């Protein structure tokens, strides 16, 4: 992979997934772009639209920083594989030589557990949202949670990850 233009790297990094594609990571880039574009409509469809902007901001910042990390790795001459974006750590390596692996073969047990847990949490949140949708207190709590509580949790988790790094 050749070195890429820094300005174009910045411009493409601003659009989630496009930065990866610019650096030759087509599969990863397409996955990120689809995820970014679909997360809003899906969450609005199940009634959790108030969470979409928070998740989108997270994905945007992650892909923005990661694009520059990928760019720096390529500049240093490191090999950057075109890996999966979501199931990167949960893909079976022993079945990678299979011609047409099924989803069950591709994703390992831990990956399915995480996906299942995520869907269960999403379902519970969606049901709770539908049950309490008419309650003013719930609306008040939901508004404050999306405005202040969840962002603060993001910051706390980010700081915890940073401190864990220094151990």
């Amino acid at each position, binding site marked *: 992979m050749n070195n890429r233009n820094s300005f174009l790297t910045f411009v493409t990094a601003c659009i989630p997934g496009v930065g990866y594609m610019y650096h030759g990571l087509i599969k990863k880039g397409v996955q990120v772009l689809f995820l970014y574009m679909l997360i809003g409509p899906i969450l609005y469809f199940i009634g959790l639209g108030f969470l979409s902007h928070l998740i989108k901001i997270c994905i945007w910042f*992650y892909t923005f920083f990661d694009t520059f990390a990928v760019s720096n790795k390529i500049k240093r001459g490191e090999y950057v594989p075109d890996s999966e974006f979501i199931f990167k750590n949960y893909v079976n390596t022993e079945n990678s030589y299979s011609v047409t692996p099924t989803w069950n073969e591709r994703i390992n047990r831990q990956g399915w557990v995480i996906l299942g847990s995520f869907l269960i949490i999403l379902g519970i949140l969606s049901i709770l949202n539908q049950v309490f949708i008419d309650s003013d207190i719930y609306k008040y709590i939901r508004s404050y949670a999306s*405005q202040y509580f969840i*962002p*603060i949790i*993001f910051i706390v988790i*980010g*700081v915890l990850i*940073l401190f*864990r*790094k220094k151990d």
Partner: protein
Amino acid sequence: MQNKRDDFDTIIINSFKDITVSDEYNKKLMQKLHKKQLPDSKRNNLIPSYALIAAGLLSIFLSITSLQVHITNFESRFFDKAVITEINQHSIINFIKQLGE
């Protein structure tokens, strides 16, 4: 050409006497040299943490300043002006048409 050591030379020579290189010198030097090149596992932790902190800060900033509301207000004001201009333009054109008839 100077053949004898002067005061300046003796100061330089004496300055080397008190230097003791510790046993960990090489190890520390290598740590300093490779400080920017953290292992992949540690480097990969940095990006999610930065992303989460930045996302949290931006979300709080947006909710405190209500920037989205300001942008929407600006957008609606702009569209109002555009609609008013269009209406005025149509009325002028209609007026000219009426004059022509």
